[in-house]
């Protein structure tokens, strides 16, 4: 046996986490050991959008369909329903195998088309299964984008062992404020293109005290952003769409080290930018932010430990004055 195959399972699994699904699957034929390693690989990744592109012969991603086409036998483009059922069967089978054999699932990534209430029910079943088996990371993207079929049910908010949660285009459901959220160990939260309102967000924050990294990208329904009670927060990224700008940003996070704020151009600028309690900030990055000079200087003066400052397309800044002992890198674009 070669030296690499002699490494412990946990290291090979870690190595596999740098590969995409088909590369991992290919290793399964290397030897019996690699087959077992593949079968117990705790990162599950199911992508229906990718499957649709492949089956429907997207010329970039697929070469075998072309062969099939020229052959003349299977002049067949999979319609959406067939693809859908192939995908659902595949996920269902794989997931059942993990649950039945009690193999630990570390990360579950799912990109799924929700067409009717039946598929929503199946999704709910899967989520319940993985949460009961103590999944650590969940990455869920539902499409088509405007999809009112499925509301994330309380099931998902009961995941006590979840460390990272990433939601894209999902429907959170508005009566959420009454639900109890039990994200006791959540450390990383990513929300992208979601409809969310101030109250729901605050409710989220108050229920996950351990959050270290928070990313909000193009979320609708927020006109201000406030963080008050996240004492462990170290990294914060806010990307705001011009149609849904914030007019107030208030962050009180004593452990914050990294802050990125980006805004689409020509939007109304932020009037209040309060980060007075973030003395530990080391890396500040502002992009497309029409922040006024006074406000900017006031902001930067609050960060005595600042090491890296990145500014790009901040057009309203005529002059910049920085006095800091710690600054190591400054970029301006």
């Amino acid at each position, binding site marked *: 046996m070669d*030296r690499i195959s002699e490494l412990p399972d946990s290291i090979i699994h*870690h190595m596999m986490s740098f590969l995409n699904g088909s590369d991992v699957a290919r290793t399964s034929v290397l030897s019996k050991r690699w087959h077992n390693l593949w079968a117990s690989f705790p990162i599950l990744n199911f992508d229906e959008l990718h499957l649709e592109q492949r089956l429907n012969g997207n010329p970039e991603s697929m070469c075998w369909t072309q062969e099939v086409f020229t052959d003349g036998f299977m002049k067949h483009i999979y319609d959406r329903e067939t693809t859908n059922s192939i995908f659902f069967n595949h996920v269902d089978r794989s997931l059942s195998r993990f649950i039945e054999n009690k193999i630990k699932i570390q990360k579950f990534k799912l990109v799924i088309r929700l067409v009717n209430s039946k598929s929503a029910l199946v999704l709910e079943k899967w989520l319940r299964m993985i949460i009961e088996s103590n999944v650590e990371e969940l990455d869920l993207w539902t499409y088509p984008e405007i999809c009112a079929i499925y509301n994330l049910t309380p099931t998902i908010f009961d995941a006590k062992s979840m460390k990272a949660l990433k939601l894209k285009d999902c429907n959170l459901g508005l009566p959420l404020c009454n639900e109890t959220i039990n994200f006791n160990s959540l450390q990383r939260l990513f929300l992208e293109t979601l409809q969310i309102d101030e109250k729901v967000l605050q409710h989220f924050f108050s229920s996950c005290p351990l959050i270290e990294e928070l990313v909000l990208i193009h979320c609708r329904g927020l006109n201000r952003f406030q963080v008050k009670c996240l004492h462990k927060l170290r990294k914060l990224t806010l990307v705001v769409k011009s149609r849904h700008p914030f007019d107030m940003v208030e962050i009180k996070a004593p452990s914050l080290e990294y802050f990125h704020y980006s805004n689409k151009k020509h939007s109304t600028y932020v009037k209040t930018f309060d980060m007075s309690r973030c003395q530990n900030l080391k890396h500040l990055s502002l992009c497309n932010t029409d922040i006024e000079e006074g406000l900017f200087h006031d902001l930067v003066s609050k960060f005595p430990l600042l090491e890296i400052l990145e500014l790009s397309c901040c057009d309203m800044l005529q002059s910049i004055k920085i006095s800091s002992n710690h600054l190591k*890198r400054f970029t301006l674009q």
Partner: protein
Amino acid sequence: MSSSLEKNMLILRSSDGEEFIVPEVVAVMSKAIKNMVEDECASNTIPVPNVDANILAMVIEFCKKHDESEAEAASDLKTFDSEFVNRGQEALYDLITAANFRDVKELLDALCQNVAEMIKGKSVHHIRIQFLGYQLFEILTSNFIWNIWCDRDFD
């Protein structure tokens, strides 16, 4: 040696007895050593069993570079990483075990990334050749003998 030791320096002793003087900030990039230092169960000299001088020197080189270039551009560090991990099977195996055992996350990630590159987009045949390297000859010959054996059987 330790009498003239500056403040914030630690001595690491490899499994074959060689000693390295390393700044504490560099040494604590290994979580295992960090825990020892924090629990104050370590004297100035910290034994690093299972890791020989050759490998320990490489690990220290890696940690030093990462400590120095904290605020440097990330791309420089990436090129350093990819050159650093580009080694033969034996060294790669020893480095991975050392990084895992001493819990040096950055190094383990860089090494695993390197192994992943060997697999990414390659055919099964190609992966085998990469993994087996010098053992390949042996396998080819044994396969050859095996094929002759099979042919004879089927005839």
